[in-house]
């Protein structure tokens, strides 16, 4: 079976390591980036099945990164999930408006994260079917 590919974007190295370990143990293939810019560089030659990104990051934050993804013909179909660590109703509302349908807030249970990832990937599949 093909491993599902995840691009993980977060500026905290320890968190990146932790999540990489977790996701790898669960049979995902994980690549990480410390900010939006790095992530875009990776996306130049590697298309994941899902992108999970933090919001508050230096150099290029989560919002800007998301805009860039959506603007890209190649990339805008990739399912996108935010770590909404910033408990900002305003910002969240902004994204609900734009169609980022799901957030997961820190800290989270591994179980919940897995569910979310599966759901997102499946949804894409169903959409693709149509």
């Amino acid at each position, binding site marked *: 079976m093909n491993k599902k590919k995840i691009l993980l974007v977060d500026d905290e190295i320890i968190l990146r390591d932790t*999540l990489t370990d977790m996701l790898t143990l669960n049979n995902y293939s994980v690549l990480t980036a410390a900010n939006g810019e790095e992530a875009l560089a990776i996306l130049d030659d590697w298309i994941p099945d899902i992108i999970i990104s933090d919001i508050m990051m*230096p150099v290029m934050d989560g919002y800007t990164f998301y805009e860039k993804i959506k603007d890209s013909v190649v990339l805008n179909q990739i399912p996108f999930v935010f770590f909404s660590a910033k408990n900002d109703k305003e910002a969240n509302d902004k994204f609900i408006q734009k169609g980022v349908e799901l957030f997961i807030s820190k800290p*989270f*249970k591994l179980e919940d994260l897995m569910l979310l990832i599966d759901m997102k990937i499946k949804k894409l599949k169903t959409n693709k079917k149509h």
Partner: protein
Amino acid sequence: MKNLLLGISNANNHLLKENSIDDALNLCIASIGKSQEIDRCYIFKNETEDGILKLYYVYEWCNEGVDSFLGSPELNGVSYDDFPGLYKTLVNDEPLYGLVKESDNKLFVETMEMQGIKSYLFTPIFSENKFWGWIGYDDCKTERIWIEEEVNVLHTVAKNIGIRLNQDKTNAKLENHLEQFDFYLKGSNQGMWEWDIITNKTVFSYNWAGMIGYNLDEIEQTYEFWKKNVHPDEINQIELDLMNYIQGKTDSYDGVMRMKHKKGHYVWVKHSGLVIKNIVGEPIKVIGTHIDISEIKEAERQLELSEEKFRFIAENTTDLITQHFNDGTFSYVSNSSKEIIGYKPEELIYRSPYDFIHPDDLQIMQNAHQEIAEKLKIKPLTFRFRKKDNSYIWMESVTKVILKNKQQIIGMQSSSRDISEMIKTAEEMRLNLLKEKELNELKSNFISMASHQFRTPLTIIYSNAELLEIKSKMEEYKSANSVKLISNRIKNEVERLTELMNNILIFGKYESEGTKKNIKELDFGHFINKIIETYFDNEPDGRKIRITIKGKKQKLNSDETLLIHIITNVVSNAFKYSVNRKEPKLVINYLKEKIKVEIIDYGIGIPNEEKQHLFTSFFRATNTSTIVGSGLGLTIVKQFINLLNGEIVVLSEENIGTTVLLTIPYE
């Protein structure tokens, strides 16, 4: 003749003496008749009726045994047209006399014979140069021939009658005038008085008495009555004035005084007098007037009171009260002007307010000036006014027009207030509100940012705990290394959380209460050594920090706790951001007024663009992502160094190192 003259004399007396004209004439003709042995003596009066001059038989005296024809219709209302000859003679002021039988007027003869007259004499009476009538003398017994002297004398009597009649007419006119005069006099508010100096007799007029509430018959017409009714405060002076005037020491007697009214109160009276002197210049009488001026006096008093009230308010108010002529120039300025705008009232009178108003506000004033002419009052105005010391103050003014007779605008009145304080306060309040808003925003930002900072460490701890669970089910868990890796992560995060929590507590405490200083005398060098020993002697990589001291040692008076925070924070940074690099250095420099402390590291430095954010809460430079930090350390250091009245300066170059310069004053 003697008899005749006596008779005439009597007749004249009557004419002179008798008050009533009827009595005078009756007695007159009686006297003549008796003295002349005439049978009848009578008077005809002329009256014009329907344009025809007629005779009327008005007075008659008859001798004994002679018939009276008084009231006889034949003799009343007889037209002169029937007796042209009679008329012609008499109207020329000529007597007519003769024997009846010799007359050629048939009617005349008839009339006379009817009365039994044989001989007649008629003398015309002229009054005011007009043919008034005539006296007739009848002789019924004899055909008497009238002697010329008789005729002349009797004609004289007729003339006297004429004079007497004139007098009466004049008197009647005079009486009429007097009546009118009396009427007008009563209607006026003037009273008249008269005092005969010689006899002490006084006369007061109807109005004189009425002015003080009496009818003329209720008062004594005496000098004493007047005296006792003049106000006791005034009577002495008034009497003196009167005496001086009468004696010629002064040339007028007039003034005002109070007279006691019947009801008991006093009325104000304006009096004046004129002295009448006799031929030799001696004063004999004084006549004068009283005019009731109570109403005027009262009006004066009311005006005075009202003026007093106005003055009191104007002079005691803290507002500026001004009055203006129609062109806007000041006509009155209250005393408060000195205090409010630095000018004395006299410095402003006749000047234009436009000279003092701020140029930017001039248009407002001009508009208002126009508006007030139409609307009579305007909404409060706000403008700047230049004080004597050339500074401007904000003033608020309320203005109304001053009306005369409710129609004509004769000026404007303003009440103005210095509202500079108010405006300043309002501005301050606005700024304070803004500041508070900013602060609140900052606080909520801080809180949201602080809580954000917790999330990642917590996530790491939780996820790693989950990892442990997963791994425990798998083969790899037995590897001590992988467990160690995970537990290290957890421990690290807990440390991080702890530091964060502590810093937030410190910072938060500072924000809410303000940190209080506890000043003590310190030996700085010794102090630094202690800190290094306590906290930084056991660095994991074994590095130490080298301390150098320069300058002459001096005692420092400062707060230990704050200093500990500052130093530990900065030194900790020095170590933290220079891992695997040279050892950091600490240099103490004792200067004249302050201590200079340099903490130098040879670590990663701070990127140029980010230096400005160094002291911002939760700021972490981009090159620190691998190094744990709360982002609050330098924020706290800066605040604490400010509290100690010191300064902090950070010099840095990326990848070369960072120097933190602290200056702490000795006091």
